[in-house]
C-alpha cells in the first residue's frame, strides 16, 4: 500500500528534466482536454478557413498594390502573409483564456500545491497552443494555395517563413499567458487578449500596402512589430512586399522579427511566471 510513499528528504529545487516532463504532461492535458471543447475546434478549423476566404474574396479586388495594378493575383499573393501573421498573433486568445479558466476553476491552486516545476503550467500551455497553431497554419496554407496564393521562393524559403510565423505565435503565447494570469477570468481574458491586437494588426502592413497610408501613419505602420513579421514572411515566401521608407525595418525584416521574438519573450515570460507564482483564486 505504501509503495509509492516518499521517504527520502525531497529536494527543494526542480531539475531541468523534471521541468520538461511537467511541461509535457500539462501540454498533454491541454491538448487532450482542449480538443473536446467545441470553441477550440471552431477556433482551430473554421476560423482560419473563414479568414482566408473572406479576405481573399471580399477585399481581394478592392485594394490595389502599387506598381502591380494590372496583376489580378497581386493582392492575394500580397495578402496571405498578413492573414497568416494575424492568425499567429491571435494565439494570444487561447493562451489567455486557457490560463484564466484554470485560475478561475482553482486548478492553478492545485498545480501550485504539487511538487511540480513552477514553469510547468505556462510552458505546457505554450507547447499545446503552439502545436495547435501548427495545425491552424497548415490549414491556412492549404486554403491559401487553393484560392490562388503562391509560394514563390522555394522550399528553404517556405520553411523559413513557416518557422518565423511559429516563432511569432510562440512569442505572442507568452503575452497571452501573462494576460490570462493577470485577469484570471476567461470571459475578461477573451476580450482583454484580443482587443488591443486588432488596432495593432490593422495599423500594420498586414492587409494594406503601407505606401498607400497617409504620410504620418507610414512610419508607425512600418515600425510596427507585426509589420516586421509580415514583411519577413513575404520575403521568405517570395511574395510581393513594399515599404514607403528606406529604413532598417524595410531592409532587414527577418533580423528585426527575430529581435522582436527575443524582446517579447524576454519581457513577457518572466512576467507570466511571476504572475503564476503569485496567482490566487478569486
Amino acid at each position, binding site marked *: *500500500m*505504501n509503495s*509509492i*510513499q*516518499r521517504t527520502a*528528504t*525531497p*529536494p*527543494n*529545487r*526542480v531539475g531541468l528534466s*523534471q521541468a520538461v*516532463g*511537467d511541461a509535457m*504532461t*500539462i501540454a*498533454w*492535458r491541454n491538448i*487532450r*482536454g*482542449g480538443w*473536446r*471543447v467545441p470553441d477550440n475546434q471552431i477556433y482551430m478549423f473554421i476560423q482560419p478557413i473563414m479568414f482566408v476566404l473572406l479576405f481573399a474574396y471580399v477585399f481581394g479586388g478592392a485594394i490595389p498594390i502599387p506598381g502591380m495594378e494590372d496583376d489580378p493575383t497581386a493582392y492575394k499573393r500580397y495578402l496571405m502573409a498578413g492573414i497568416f501573421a494575424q492568425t499567429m498573433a491571435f494565439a494570444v486568445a487561447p493562451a489567455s483564456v486557457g490560463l484564466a479558466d484554470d485560475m478561475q*476553476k*482553482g*486548478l492553478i*491552486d*492545485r*498545480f*501550485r*500545491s*504539487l*511538487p*511540480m516545476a513552477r514553469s*510547468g503550467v505556462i510552458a505546457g500551455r505554450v507547447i499545446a497552443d503552439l502545436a495547435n497553431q501548427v495545425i491552424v497554419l497548415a490549414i491556412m496554407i492549404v486554403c491559401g494555395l487553393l484560392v490562388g496564393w503562391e509560394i514563390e521562393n522555394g522550399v528553404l524559403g517556405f520553411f523559413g517563413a513557416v518557422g518565423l510565423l511559429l516563432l511569432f505565435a510562440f512569442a505572442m503565447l507568452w503575452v497571452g499567458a501573462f494576460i490570462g494570469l493577470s485577469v484570471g477570468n476567461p470571459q475578461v481574458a477573451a476580450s482583454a487578449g484580443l482587443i488591443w491586437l486588432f488596432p495593432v494588426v490593422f495599423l500594420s502592413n498586414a492587409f494594406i500596402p503601407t505606401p498607400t497610408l497617409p504620410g504620418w501613419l507610414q512610419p508607425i505602420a512600418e515600425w510596427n512589430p507585426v509589420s516586421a513579421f509580415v514583411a519577413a514572411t513575404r520575403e521568405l515566401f517570395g511574395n510581393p512586399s513594399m515599404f514607403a521608407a528606406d529604413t532598417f525595418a524595410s531592409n532587414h525584416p527577418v533580423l528585426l522579427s527575430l529581435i522582436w521574438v527575443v524582446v517579447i519573450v524576454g519581457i513577457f515570460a518572466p512576467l507570466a511566471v511571476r504572475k503564476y507564482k503569485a496567482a*490566487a*483564486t478569486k
Partner: protein
Amino acid sequence: MNAISAEGLVKTFGTGDKAVKAVGGVDLTVPEGTVVGLLGPNGAGKTTAVRMLTTLLQPDAGRALVAGHDVVREPQAVRSLIGLSGQYAAVDETLTGRENLWLFGRLYQLSSKQAKKRADELLEQFSLADAGDRTLKTYSGGMRRRLDLASSLIVHPEILFLDEPTTGLDPASRLDLWDVIRERVAEGATILLTTQYLEEADALADNIVVIDHGQVIAEGTADQLKAQIGGERIEVVVHDSEHADSAEQILNLSSGGQCDRDTHTRKLTVPTHTGSKGLIQVIRDLDEAGVTIDDIALRRPTLDDVFVKLTGRHAESETEAADTAAGRAAS
C-alpha cells in the same frame, strides 16, 4: 514531533481602507499522527490559514513548518510531502476521472504506470470506477468533490490538508470519507481539516481549534471545549403549559439552581451535577406532582453550543457571518 507548527501567522488582503486582516496572528500545532479540526464561521480565515500552510500564499508575518520544512523557504519540499484538497473542487472538467488522477499522479512525479495504477485504485476506493472514463462535465457536484479528494491522496501523503472536505457530499459519501480519513490516520497520517460540521470535528478530530476574525478563540479536545461552557443539564418538555410552574419548582429544587424556561416550546432546562441519578429523581418528582411530560433528557453540551457561545453565531448562518467579518475588519 509536530507535523505542522505555525507561529504568529498573519495575512492581510488589500490595503488602506479596504484592508481585510484575514488571519491575524494564528498559532497552530498539529502533532504527528493526529487530526486537528479547524473550526470557525464563514470568513474566519480558515481557508487563508490553510493556503499559507500549503505554500499557496505567502504569510505577511509569522513562520510555519510543515514536516520540518519552512513553507516560505522550502516550498517545493513541503509540496512533495502534502496532499491538499481545497474548499472548491479543483479538477479538470475536460478530462475524464481517470485522466485527472493520472495527470495529478504524473505531476506528483510518479511514473506513468504507477500513476495509472493509483488512478484505478482511487476510482475504486471512492466509488467512481463506473464513471472513471466519463469527462467531468457529466459528474455531479458530489462526484467531483470525491474525485478532488482522491487526487489529494495519490501519493499517500503523510500530511493532508482538507478544506471543508465533506461540504456538498450526501450522508453516505460523508461517512465513506470519514472512513477514508480514519484509515489514513491509522496508517500514521497527520490531518488538518476545516469544517462547518461540528459533528464532523467531534467524530474525527483529536484536537479542535476554533478561529474567528483571524484569531484563535478556543482550543482543546471536543470534551474540553464542551466542559468550558458547562456540564450536563436536564431538559424537560411539559405537555401542558399550565404545568410549567410546578415543573419549574421541582427542577429548581432538585438542582438547587435556576431553571431556564422557554414558554413557547414549553421547554425547561436546568444544570445538574448528579447525572442520571438526578434525572431519575426529577422524573419521580414530576410524576408524583402529576405533571405530564412530552420529553425529558439528560443533555451534554454539543460542539454547536460551544460554537454559539464562543462566536455568538451558529456555524451554518452563512453569508451574514462573512459579511460582519469583512465589515468589522474593514472598519
